[in-house]
Structures are given as C-alpha cells and as structure tokens.
C-alpha cells in the first residue's frame, strides 16, 4: 500500500535521526527516498528531479554545518524548497476592474470540477461582500447548463440562463453561440448590478484546437481579470502537460485545485505551479457549496511534511464559532456551570464547521492523531443529530440540572427524541465525562495551545 508523502518522509527522517551529520552518502540515500515519495505523490518526474537537485546542492554546501540535527536540516531544506516552489504567500483573487463586471473565466479538462467550482466561487465571493453572477457557456456536455442552473438555484445566486442568446445565434451549439451568450451575460450582470461574472466553460482536452480557439476568443471578448485553471488534485504526470498547454494558449492567472478532500497527495499542486508559474489560489475541500478555501502554500507544505494543517483548522473554527459564545462557554467551564444546554450549543457549532472528516484531515498524521484520522471516516454525522434531538427533548430544568434525570424521565426523553433509553444514557454519560474533562484542564485556550505546540521545527 502506498504511504502518504508525509508518512514516508517521516520514516526517512527517522532513519536519519541517528546520524551525526549529513554526509554525501546519507544525503543521497535520503534523496532517493524523497524522490520515490514525491513520485508516488504524483509530482512530475522532471519537477521532482529539479527539486532534489536544489536540495542536494544546498545539503552538501556550507549551509548545513549548523547546530541542527541532520533530520531537521533535511526537513528545513525540503520545506524551503517546497515553499519556494509553491510561492510563499496565499494569493488573492483579482476582482478589481474599471469596467464592471470583473470576469472570472474557468478553464480546465473535462471532469476537473469546473461547474461545481463555479458555484462554490459564487458562494465564496458573496461571503466576501461581492455580488457574483453565474453563466455557463458549455453547450457541448449534455445538461451542463442545467447543472449550473440547479446549483445557482440552491445558492440563490444570480444566473444568466443564456437561452435568449442561444436562440438568437440560431440554437446551434458552437463558438458563435458561446460568444453570444458571454456577451449577453456581461450586459445582464451590469444591468443587474453584479460586480463579478463567473463564466463556466466546456471541458476540453488541451490538444483540441477548435475548443482552445473558442477559449481564446472568449478571453478576447471578456478581457477577464482572472483565468482560473481548474485541476483535479488526483491528476498524475499529465498535470504538467495539460497545465502547460492551457497556459500557453490562455496565459492563466491562477489555479483551483479540486477534490482535495480525497486521499491523493496532491503532488499535482507542485507540478502545475512549477510549469505555469501561476499561484494556486483556491482549493476544493468538499461536495458542499461552501467547500472552497484559500490556498495557503505554507500550510500545504507543512501538511506534506506531516505537521498537519492546524492553522487552517483554527481559522475555520474562528469563522464559525461566535466569539462571545466562546467566552461565555469558557467562563462556564471554569465555574463548573457547563450544562446540557451548553453541550448542545457546542455540538451545533461543531457541525457548522463542516464535516468532521474534513476537519480531522487537517490534523497531523502522526502520534495520537493517526487513530483519529482512521476513526473519523466512521463517525456517523447523523449521530450528532441524534444527540441534539435527545437534548432537545429535555425540559429546561433537566438541561440545567442533569442529576434530576431519573429512569422515567429517561424513558420520556427517549420517546420524545425517537431514540432508546440506552442512547439517552450514553449521551448523559458522555456529557458527565466531558464535564469532568473540562474541569481538569484549566485555561481557555487549551486546544489552541496544544495545537500550536506542534508547529514544525526549523
């Protein structure tokens, strides 16, 4: 079975740990292991070899004669190289234009996730104070425009259907109709006061000259502020080639990496970045419309290196959890006033963060977290709903004073919540244990301190 890049590197570094300093021999052995790991992570052969050449040079030079351990030195070198390759800072979307609407053109191979990403992008931009409009100019894939229309309907986002423009162009799928729809959509966006227009396009192979030509014409017509290359994180060696071809034709301005919630190691990120030189701006992390996040190169690198993506987790937690409620909770925890009502509140906030699975993914893959990673896929999200129902079936008095919940009350609660007495017992037991646990840890930022304490060395 394949190991994750971070697992493999961890093993490599473990064997290095015993060594006093870097020698030509042990550096070479390490680099070979790293090469295999990178290749199995789908990093392009050429890109991997270039990366290793950089590390080899530095490892054998003067810089390594420091007080760091050999393992730390290699981690640091590798991390620096990866950071260098991915670009240090998170890149922002450019939606500034003197002639609104700012247009985002979505490009990519078939099945990379353009339509879903377009909808996510609308949600993302709206959350950041914009008013985006969606339009699909994919006249080729059956039901492609319907798909975007359904997603826009779910989001209640403005959509330009393009039906009139299509009729005007004779109802014939082809470049004239595509351009006609794009033109009408831009007018529509302007008239309806939308400041951003997201243009979903047909998926195409990079060797398809006709469709590439159509993209070029779309680009000329729309003068987009962003041309985003939507790429599947599971792509293999071909990532370099397709990205290069798209870049050659369209001069991409950024990349969206989709399906990052799978277990691919995302080596495509390195390949695409290195061949286009364009930043990865966003990543898709779930099937839900809110599953789109800014790409933080430093965090991805630290994830590759096995240090987890703790910063992302904290950022997400801060967005979803009401700060005031949080302070209130901390006060209660300290004063032993953590009631079942608070317990329910906590659960609801956890659910707001998104699926447990995607949260746990961000934690490091070592130590105690390893078990958690495995367990997380088995967590039944419905179970959380059941707990909520059980607490919801209690009286206010019961929620404040759990001690009074006796046998007959338990029976009533089970009936009211459609669960069994056993399940009620279980929830109460969990709650009591949680109370005990909270009492034993003092201080408010326990979790954060614990997590922050695990930053990578070097």
């Amino acid at each position: 079975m394949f190991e994750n890049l971070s697992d493999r590197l961890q093993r490599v570094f473990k064997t290095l740990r015993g060594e006093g300093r870097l020698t030509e021999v042990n550096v070479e052995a390490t680099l070979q292991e790293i090469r295999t790991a990178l290749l199995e992570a789908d990093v392009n052969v050429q890109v991997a070899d270039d990366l290793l050449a950089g590390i080899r040079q530095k490892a054998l030079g003067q810089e390594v004669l420091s007080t760091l351990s050999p393992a730390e030195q290699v981690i640091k070198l590798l991390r620096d190289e990866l950071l260098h390759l991915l670009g240090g800072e998170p890149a922002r979307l450019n939606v500034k234009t003197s002639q609104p609407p700012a247009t985002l053109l979505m490009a990519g191979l078939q099945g990379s996730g353009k339509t879903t990403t377009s909808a996510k992008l609308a949600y993302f931009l709206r959350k950041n104070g914009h008013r985006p409009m969606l339009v699909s100019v994919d006249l080729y894939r059956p039901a492609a425009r319907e798909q975007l229309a359904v997603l826009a309907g779910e989001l209640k986002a403005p959509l330009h259907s393009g039906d009139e423009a299509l009729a005007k162009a004779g109802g014939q799928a082809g470049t004239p109709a595509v351009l006609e729809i794009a033109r009408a959509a831009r007018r529509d966006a302007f008239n309806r006061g939308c400041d951003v227009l997201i243009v979903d396009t047909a998926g195409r192979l990079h060797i398809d000259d006709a469709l590439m030509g159509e993209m070029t014409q779309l680009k000329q017509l729309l003068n987009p502020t962003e041309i985003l290359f939507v790429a599947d994180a599971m792509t293999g060696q071909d990532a370099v080639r397709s990205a290069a071809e798209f870049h050659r034709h369209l001069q991409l301005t950024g990349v969206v990496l989709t399906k990052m919630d799978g277990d691919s190691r995302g080596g495509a990120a390195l390949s695409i970045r290195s061949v286009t030189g364009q930043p990865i701006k966003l990543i898709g992390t779930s099937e839900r419309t809110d599953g789109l996040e800014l790409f933080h190169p430093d965090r991805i690198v630290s994830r590759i290196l096995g240090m987890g993506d703790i910063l992302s987790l904290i950022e997400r937690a801060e967005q979803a959890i009401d700060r005031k409620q949080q302070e209130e909770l901390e006060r209660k925890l300290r004063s032993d006033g953590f009631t079942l009502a608070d317990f329910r509140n906590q659960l609801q906030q956890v659910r707001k963060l998104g699926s447990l699975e995607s949260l746990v993914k961000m934690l490091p893959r070592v130590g105690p977290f390893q078990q958690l990673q495995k367990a997380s896929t088995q967590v039944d999200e419905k179970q959380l709903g059941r707990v909520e129902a059980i607490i919801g079936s209690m009286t206010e008095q019961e929620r404040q004073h759990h001690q009074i919940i006796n046998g007959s009350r338990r029976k009533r609660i089970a009936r009211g919540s459609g669960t069994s007495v056993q399940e009620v017992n279980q929830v109460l037991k969990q709650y009591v244990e949680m109370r005990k646990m909270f009492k034993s840890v003092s201080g408010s930022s326990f979790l954060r301190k614990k997590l922050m304490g695990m930053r990578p060395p070097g």
Partner: protein
Amino acid sequence: MIQTLFGGPPKPSLRERLQQKMAGAVQKTKEALVSQVDELLKGSPEISPELLREIETLLLAADLGAATVAEVLAQVRRSAEADRQTSGEAVRGAIKDELVRVLNAAPLRTREVPDGQPFVLLVVGVNGVGKTTTIGKLAQFFRGQGHTVLLCAADTFRAAAIEQLEVWGHRVGSEVIRQKSGADPSAVLFDGLSAAKARHCNYVIIDTAGRLHTKSNLMDELSKMRRTAERLVPGAPHETLLVLDATTGQNGLQQARQFTAAAGVTGLVVTKLDGTARGGIVVAIARELGLPVRFVGVGEGADDLIPFEAERYIDALFAKG
C-alpha cells in the same frame, strides 16, 4: 476476453473500425514513441545504466508508479540477462512484453447470467471521471450488437445528472428509469431492475453518483446497492465497472482498492484516453489488484468507446511527457 462476454466475435468490418479508432486515439503518442525510442537507441546502442534511467523516466512519466516501474525494470533486466540481449531494441521489446503480460494476466471476473434475466452492469467511480458519458457510450455499444438496453439513473445527488443521462438515453435510443433528484439510489435501482425484468431487456446499466473513495458512508451506499441488485436478479451485478480518468495518477490505485472492497469491481473503463493522456496507472492496478481493463474512451462521440487491447495501448504509453 470481451468477446466471451458480449456475444460472438465482432464482424470484420466492425473490428477494422475499432482498430482505426484506437490507432487514431494513440496516433500522437505513437509518433512521439517512435522518435523517442529511436533517439534513445541511437545514443546508446547497448544497455547502460543511463539507458535504463532514461527508460525509467519514460515509464514514470506514463504514471506507472515507482513500485511498478521498479518491478518492470527488474523483470526486464532478468530477461535480458537470460537471453543475452544487449541491444536497446531488445530492451524496449522486453519492457513492452512485460507490460502486456501484466495487463493480459488480469482474469475475467464476470458472473454468469441466468436465462431470461438481464445482465446488470453497475458503473462506479470518483467525481468527474466520465461515468455518465461512459454509460451513454456503453448503451450505444450494446445496442450496436442488437441488444436491448435500459439505463438506470441512480445518480440522484449531482445537480442535473439525471438530465444528462436522459440526453444520452435519447441519443442512443434507450429508455431511462429515473426518480426525482435526491431519491434513494437503491430505490431507483429497484425500479430499474424491476422494469428490466418486466420488459425482458438484455442489459441494465446503472449510473451512480461520483464519490471519493475516502467517504466510507458513500461507499457503504454502494454495498447496499449491490445487495438490492442481488435480491432482484440472482448474481447481479454481473459486472461492476470502475471508471478511471486516464490522467489520474497514483491515487488511482487507492481508488481501485477501495471501490473493489465496497462495490466488488470486476473491471476498469479508462476514459479520456484520446489526446495525450497516459493512464499508466491501470498497469499498476492490473498488477496489484488483478483488474482487467474492459473498455477505453477515445473521444466524445457515442461510438467512441472501444474494447481494450493491451498491445495497442502499451504502444501509446511510451511517449515522453
């Protein structure tokens, strides 16, 4: 192997057409292959570490994966030593033979279909690999052999997936059994199989929602669909096809492993093989899981799905990326 499953051997004219299609799909890569290998041989007429290194890079660039490449090269070295082959040409031949051997060694796993029952084909895969399109083409393929085909729209999750399948159904002249979006996939499957039995259809092809293999609840849903199918039609699903995007990298192995565990995959369909896509991951999958490639998608038209032939495919792999 396809022939044993899907009726008698194709007529010569059909066979010729298929060969042309495959040749067309791999033409670019073939050209690149010839020039690559020629250059390689000109530079180093004998087996040298450099030559093997070059070949290793070629294989890696084809997404075969580090482990598979290492084994293939070891095998090539062994056979070269045994036969005292020294020319680069022979090395190239040995690699090709080894890859073809791996691909052809995968056993056929299809189950028998009792008389009077429909052949049930379940199509699974991660998001965006081309499941629905593949189903349209499969329907066309079976229709072309004179069979009746019923399509079952059990992807009730993705927006407009049902509509997409209906467009295909209309295009190839197959009825589509559907419910509304968001319905229980197993319920749609139940309807589909019941209808197929009532109408004495030869084939039922079931579309499923794309799912990442890491989502255990969604994988459980597939297991449930299998059980539902088996209750209605003995031995169903008779074939479970995992659709893989040819550009998928090493994660494809993980996909194949998880889908096989949950849905009992019996074969692969490689899509988007036209153009310059590699698809070398299927070699790793055949080697490790013994799953045969049944079909490859070579274009966007309804006829652009053809039975797989290992030899032709391997030719296409050797192009440098």
